[in-house]
């Protein structure tokens, strides 16, 4: 069965692989490169230091204004947002800052809307199998890092679109567990592609997305082996050298991976996850309860 189409992100087999390929072109840009990565007539992705600041696909109908309007309940008046946009065009002030300053959206809400917009655009480009054919460097920097996204975040949003509650739960789990000197991501095995699918990523996780996915596949395999040996396995720590380590755990069918730059960070994670195993009554994510209730 094909996964449900959610949020207008095209959901189809192979999309994850095409998106991964497209995002790989961004990760391959020189460190610190700022500019526009063009995908022929298909669209453009604005990049600063390998972070995605804006993306647009020609085939995409959804506009940022639409997302912002529908984010609140009751919806925000379109005129109010367009007034701010017009004001920014006149004054040259950054749109994001102005929207937040106007009180129409919160910083978190704006980031969420921008991520959704960027993800839609990237997914559309990936579905069209667009390939990057030119990079126009910009001489000035100035994108607000709060509203720029790693390639890992964008792939996670594309792959997680078939089950947003699961992705939201995974993001909360990462935010709650990760410690200083660690970053991480969450993976599932799903219908959108073979291997482990990235469904959530720590916003600070800025490793090349193909490397993160490869590490996720490795960790998922490790958890499978560990679970075959010991069904009640709670956490696995893999020490690579005296400092770096990978910590992985499985919860409600989602595999989590933490990459640690210090042994102390790995120890804190193992300790924290060890404590949490004694906590009972944690409700499963909404998506899981929905599946349980479904006939």
């Amino acid at each position: 069965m094909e996964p449900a189409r959610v949020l207008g992100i095209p959901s189809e087999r192979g999309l994850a692989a095409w998106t991964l390929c497209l995002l790989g072109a961004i990760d391959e840009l020189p460190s610190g490169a700022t500019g526009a990565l063009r995908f022929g007539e298909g669209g453009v992705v604005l990049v600063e230091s390998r972070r995605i600041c804006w993306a647009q696909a020609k085939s995409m109908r959804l506009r940022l204004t639409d997302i912002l309007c529908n984010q609140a309940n009751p919806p925000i008046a379109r005129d109010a947002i367009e007034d701010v946009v017009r004001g920014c065009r006149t004054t040259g002030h950054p749109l994001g800052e102005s929207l937040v300053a106007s009180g129409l959206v919160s910083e978190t809400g704006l980031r969420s809307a921008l991520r959704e917009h960027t993800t839609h655009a990237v997914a559309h480009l990936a579905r069209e199998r667009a390939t990057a054919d030119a990079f126009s460097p910009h001489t000035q920097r100035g994108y607000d890092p709060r509203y720029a996204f790693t390639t890992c975040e964008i792939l996670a949003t594309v792959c997680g679109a078939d089950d947003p509650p699961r992705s939201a739960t995974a993001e909360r789990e990462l935010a709650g567990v990760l410690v200083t000197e660690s970053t991480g991501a969450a993976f599932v095995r799903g219908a959108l592609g073979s291997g482990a699918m990235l469904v959530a990523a720590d916003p600070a996780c800025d490793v090349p997305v193909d490397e993160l996915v490869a590490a996720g596949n490795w960790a998922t395999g490790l958890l499978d082996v560990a679970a075959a040996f010991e069904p009640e396995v709670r956490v696995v720590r893999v020490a690579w050298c005296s400092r770096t380590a990978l910590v992985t755990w499985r919860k409600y069918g989602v595999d989590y991976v933490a990459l640690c730059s210090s042994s102390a960070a790995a120890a804190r994670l193992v300790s924290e996850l060890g404590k949490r195993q004694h906590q009972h009554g944690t409700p499963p994510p909404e998506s899981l309860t929905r599946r349980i209730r479904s006939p």
Partner: protein
Amino acid sequence: MSQSLPAGRVLVEVFHALASMQSGELVECDAPVPARLRLEELAATLPSLFGAADLAPLERVLGRFGSEGGESLREVLLVSGEHVHVMKPLSRRRGVALIAMSTAKNSIGLVLSAVHQRAAELEGG
């Protein structure tokens, strides 16, 4: 082989064995039967984790977090609801790993200390 380590008032019992990372068979083990059976099962996972697995993805990604080239997988710690397990490849005995298990799941640090001490003895360090 079993080991009881006094640490203040805490006794941590750790059972050790040596196992082949290629075949997954025990090479040396004098642990009593219940622990030996578990160590045999643990040893059977070694080929999947160390023998056949391509560790390049792990090396690449952790290289970005400060590990240097030429390093390799140092130790796997597996914590379950009832046990702590450790797998540690020995640098001076190619293809052989020290494996260990303990029920002291709330004393992971002590278990690791015991394993590291045993590994140092085996490596002649």
